């Protein structure tokens, strides 16, 4: 029975670790360790890294482990994920096909200048040079001698057994690509010389490049890290300015908005084609591209005011989207600029097919889903799940002659105390979008009845999508939410109470210079706070945002 007692003790410890673990993980390391966080590379980070290090023609073909959204962002969830057995199979297979391509006859000269005298013998020096050079790029820090040595030994032994120098090289690369040091972004801290800890230079380089480029640091950034330049404001400013001005910044901004706008749901969205014959994978791909193109154009190319994404009528369409928008499409190129006519309702980014179709049911629109998503995505205000034993019978009583439409039934929530607190925040927003169906197509009527899109939120009356766009444009929570998301995305953790002052300052600065995204990114990237190593003790989260994942809540009317 000793064992049983031991197990009980272990379990008690386990529960403590299990419940606190997440918070501790998000906020710091054990006092003795240098490691402060591990974050699994996202699919796009992996792909961008391989393309940058080995060339865009190296095909990455495989299935990535699903990501998980925590505290509104996948970037935060990445800090809680590991790699399952099934997932490791896939990462191994990808590593092998990448290695095969990198060392095929066409590509090998890119990564190695060695010409082994005897191709049946592994040239040890070549392997070592390759590992030092490319290990640095893939691990985003120099490899230790032990890390090099174990791989050189393995490559020489196995390559010799296979009588092939390049087999040895391939195995060395495969070994890098399946390593936890590549698959996870491992952040480490060093002493700051004042008795505290600070994120070390290479971890800073990774934060910068993954925030601004969605890829691994380039040679110049790694050099700056090695030279200690990323500990100084001047050094950070120089690198951040270089990164923001680079063409790679577009991929970084796309990755950020893909996460914030929850565009990953496109992977699983389905519509009932008997109700929506225009639905297709091509239309969904086009919708996603339209949203990202629009954001890049307004926020990066034109350096516009962030708030205008809710009111701007400028966008891009292709042939598929033209059909959904009932717009003429006359263009020699795949994509063309398009202005939503003034007499049509529009709330900018919100009335694109993307938002309207992602936050709907397969067969019908959902004012609640849309309202909940608007609050969550653009205002960082998640809605708690309804009580488990909620009685839907009042609002669902279709025999009640006073509750004919979705609108009537939804508004009946307002009379029920339990429901009102949340539904009063979500439903008016969603109802104002009811002129758009589950696929984002415009409509004035539903089942022959005229749709009423008047709404009121916090005492302010507005009507339809255009009114909603203005409401969002003028809502101070929208820019505040963006600032919070940029920080959480880059730092890989939800802000805690200690970050409140910093975020308020950043938000004020954002307003000061006219809500320019790139200036915001730069300010965050050069600030000390961005590289702060949180204390190991758990801190109360600023706002816990673990609302029910939106796509799980099909019960919302």
């Amino acid at each position, binding site marked *: 029975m000793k064992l*049983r007692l031991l*197990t009980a003790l272990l*379990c008690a410890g*386990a*529960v403590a670790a*299990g*419940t606190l*673990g*997440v918070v*501790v*993980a*998000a906020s710091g390391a054990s006092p003795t*360790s240098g*490691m402060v*966080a591990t974050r699994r590379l996202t699919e796009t980070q992996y792909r961008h890294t391989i393309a940058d290090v080995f060339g865009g023609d190296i095909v990455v073909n495989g*299935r990535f482990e*699903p990501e*998980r959204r925590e505290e509104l962002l996948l970037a935060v969830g990445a800090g*809680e*994920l*590991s*790699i*399952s*057995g*099934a*997932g*490791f*199979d896939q990462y*191994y297979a990808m590593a092998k096909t990448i290695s095969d391509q990198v060392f095929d006859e066409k590509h090998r000269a890119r990564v190695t200048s060695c010409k082994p005298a005897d191709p049946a013998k592994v040239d040890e020096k070549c392997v070592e040079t390759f590992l030092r050079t490319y290990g640095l790029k893939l691990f985003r820090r120099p490899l230790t001698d*032990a890390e090099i040595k174990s791989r050189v*030994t*393995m490559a020489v032994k*196995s390559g010799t*057994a296979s009588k092939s120098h390049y087999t040895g090289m391939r195995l060395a690369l495969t*070994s890098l690509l399946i*390593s*936890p040091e590549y698959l*996870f972004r491992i952040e480490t801290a060093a002493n700051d010389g004042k008795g505290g800890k600070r994120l070390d230079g290479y971890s800073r380089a990774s934060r910068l490049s993954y925030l601004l480029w969605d890829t691994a640091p380039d040679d110049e950034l790694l050099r700056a890290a090695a030279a200690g330049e990323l500990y100084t404001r001047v050094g950070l400013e120089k690198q951040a300015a270089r990164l923001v001005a680079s063409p790679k910044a577009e991929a970084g901004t796309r990755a950020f908005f893909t996460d914030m706008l929850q565009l990953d749901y496109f*992977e*699983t969205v*389905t519509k*009932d084609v008997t109700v929506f014959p225009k639905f297709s994978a091509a239309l969904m791909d086009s919708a996603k591209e339209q949203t990202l193109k629009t954001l890049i154009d307004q926020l990066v190319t034109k350096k516009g005011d962030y708030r205008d994404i809710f009111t701007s009528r400028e966008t891009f369409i292709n042939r598929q989207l033209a059909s959904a928008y009932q717009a003429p499409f006359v263009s020699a190129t795949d994509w063309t600029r398009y202005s939503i006519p003034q007499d049509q309702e529009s709330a900018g980014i919100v009335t694109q097919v993307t938002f309207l179709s992602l936050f709907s*049911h*397969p*067969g019908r629109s959902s004012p609640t889903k849309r309202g909940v998503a608007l609050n969550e995505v653009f205002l960082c205000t998640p809605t708690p*799940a309804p009580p*488990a*034993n909620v*009685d*839907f*019978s009042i609002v*669902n*009583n279709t*025999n009640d002659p006073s509750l004919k439409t979705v609108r009537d039934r939804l508004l009946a929530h307002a009379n029920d105390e339990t429901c009102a607190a949340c539904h009063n925040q979500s439903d008016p927003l969603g109802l104002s979008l009811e002129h758009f169906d589950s696929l984002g197509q415009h409509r004035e009527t539903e089942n022959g009845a005229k749709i009423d899109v008047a709404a009121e939120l916090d005492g302010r009356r507005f009507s339809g999508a255009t009114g909603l766009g203005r409401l969002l444009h003028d809502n101070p929570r929208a820019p505040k939410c963006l600032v919070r998301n940029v920080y959480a995305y880059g730092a890989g953790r939800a802000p805690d109470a200690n970050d409140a002052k910093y975020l308020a300052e950043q938000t004020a600065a954002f307003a000061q210079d006219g809500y320019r995204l790139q200036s915001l990114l730069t300010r965050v990237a050069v600030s000390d706070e961005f590289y702060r190593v949180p204390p*190991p003790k758990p801190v109360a989260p600023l706002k816990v945002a673990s609302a*029910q994942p939106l796509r799980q*809540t*099909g*019960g919302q*009317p």
Partner: protein
Amino acid sequence: MTMRFNRRSMMRGMLGGAGVAVGIPMLDCFLDNHGKAFADGAKLPTRFGTYFWGLGLTPIATGGSRWVPTKVGADYEITPELESLRKLRDKVSVFSGFRVHLDGKPNLQHWTGQAAVLSGLAPDKIGTFNAPTFDTAMVDQIGGGTRFKSLELTPFGNPKLSYSTRNGQSFNTPEATPIALYTRIFGEGFRDPNDPNWAPDPSIMLRQSVLSSVTEQRKALMADAGAADRVKLDQYFTSVRQMENQLAVESQRPGRAESCVVPTAPGELKRSGQIDVVNANNKLMANLMAMALACNQTKIFNVVHTSATSEAYLPGDTAIYHLHTHDEPVDPRLGYQQISSKLAELAFRGYGDFLTALDGIKEGDGTLLDNCLVMGFSDTGYAKIHSTDNIPMFLGGGAGGRHKGGQHVVGNGDPVSRVALTAQQLAGMKVGEFGVGGMKTAKTITEVVKV
């Protein structure tokens, strides 16, 4: 008492918040005597699977049920929603009246149910479980000797639908289409166990050496990690270890698998939430999984038919199943939600079809299903109000002669962990307890154990 308690399982217990099941395997005396055998005397393995579908089955508001048989014990009658079990009844046991004990935790809608059944306690938050799911413990104890430790799949097409986890955080990625499942099992790396010219693949040794170059760094890395990072890294190294074991198996000549017939690649059905498409994909995947078992590619599998907030829908219907369960009024004449009940019957058909596929393959002197145990279960007892009482649960298959099928057992509010514990024991696990807190149980449901 023989119990393995190695560093790894201890780590998992400590760090993953595991409700490690321990105790004297009291059923051992009779559980091990029923294994069936091939003609050549080699013992046929018992395989185990979990099969989840979302939104439960339907109670009748005025009393009674669309699924719970009135007859308790043997020869239960086939109720409307259990129609798909008609031909299999004597191989399937029905468990009604079992519930989740929340132990003061919130009832997280469409999440608490499956978490509690699989991990033995109600979770703290949506998206994670507080303990590993018991299928992963089975992998470690009885899953050896096959190419895959376990296989996960979903006919719904959504690659996030999996509830199998070793640390409560990372879930095993499922194959989400028939072709993906086929490729995983019978694509590159598959070796026909009955191939007379079988020889080990020379690339196996190369892979083994690559893996060892990574595991050499394990110690240094783990020493540097804080507690939470260690959990993640431990999971990573467990996955590496799993591949090492897999390679060790692949380098040995496998025993003959007399029922193994390598299937041809299935066609691709369009991904859709339409319930008939989901069920068609389910059948294709059931046939592939059956062959994976018959060909000794794995012993453990986990299926998620539809998510707990099922987005399945009837052809041409603008509302999804989940929406119906909340929106559809209870028909005052019938006492239940008509459309929801129809969808419940269709969703549960996935389980019946899966068992039918396993039963269609001859193995030894019976069928493959006779050597399997598949636990069917859902997240709610009444989806309309997210009730976690009376969660429908089923055990299908003979478990190598250990399961006394065809029984209806009434739980009277006992924890669902009793069914999970019994499932593990029938499948051959040496385990005496399962669950944490109010869910902890050592009580086997002896009504379904063959003595």
